[in-house]
């Protein structure tokens, strides 16, 4: 692979606020930095919960509307939707997954954001969502680099691959 074929920069949009909605973008951004690729993260809509300091470490897996959900583990029985709606189901599934992630050294969301920021990745919040949810700078984790419009996002993303998650 010649140097010209290499990806030099990625801009990753995180639009969902479930645990499984936020993590892939974080892993991709961190992985990019580890390869020497520049990385921007743009959090929008419910994805914004990934950088709200009060909620970021309390994201849950969606157990409803998730036809791939299986119990008691990833190769177990398909879980009926009604069961997924039971109180505590989401918390339980989340607990199980967090335990597995801890084993392979995937950090909790807050620590992961800090790691990406320390690695030089940039973290932005979507202005439209911030206005819609009535959020203030103080609601965000300290690593948040700025609240930007979609236009500014495209400016920041110049020369990068854009990945929507």
């Amino acid at each position, binding site marked *: 692979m010649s140097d010209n074929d290499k990806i030099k920069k990625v801009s990753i949009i995180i639009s969902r606020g479930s645990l499984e909605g936020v993590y892939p973008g974080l*892993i991709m951004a*961190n*992985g990019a*930095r*580890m*390869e*020497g690729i520049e990385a921007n993260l743009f959090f929008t809509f419910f994805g914004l919960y990934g950088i709200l300091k009060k909620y970021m470490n309390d994201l849950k897996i969606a157990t409803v509307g998730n036809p791939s959900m299986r119990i008691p583990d990833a190769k177990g029985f398909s879980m009926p939707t009604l069961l997924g709606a039971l109180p505590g189901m989401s918390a339980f599934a989340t607990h199980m997954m967090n335990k597995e992630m801890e084993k*392979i*050294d*995937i*950090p909790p969301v807050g*620590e992961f954001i*800090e*790691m990406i920021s*320390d*690695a*030089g990745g940039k973290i932005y919040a979507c202005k439209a969502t911030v206005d819609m949810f009535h959020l203030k700078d103080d609601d965000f984790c300290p690593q948040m680099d700025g609240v930007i419009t979609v236009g500014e996002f495209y400016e920041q993303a110049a020369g990068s691959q854009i990945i929507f998650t």
Partner: protein
Amino acid sequence: MPDTTINGITVSVDADGYLTDHSQWSRELAEGLAAAEGITLTDAHWKILDFIAADYAEKSAVPGMRRMNKVGGIPTKELYALFPDGPIKKAAKIAGFPKPTSCV
């Protein structure tokens, strides 16, 4: 398996330039591997390389970023400052270990 000569020492490496036989590694060789990456090794670099070696002996794997932070006590920022653009891959290569296989 291609052979390559670094600092006058001939060693076996894989297609990505990682040593295939750790017994061929020496501190002198590390200086040469680092130079090829544009890095001059200091005590701070050696602290990281030594941690990788100690952890590899225990786990048979190159430690990921979080393990470097938590077990090695090496902050993320320091790793990126000392081994820019791909800290763990570069540190693993210089320390004479295989290409890291962890996603995090």
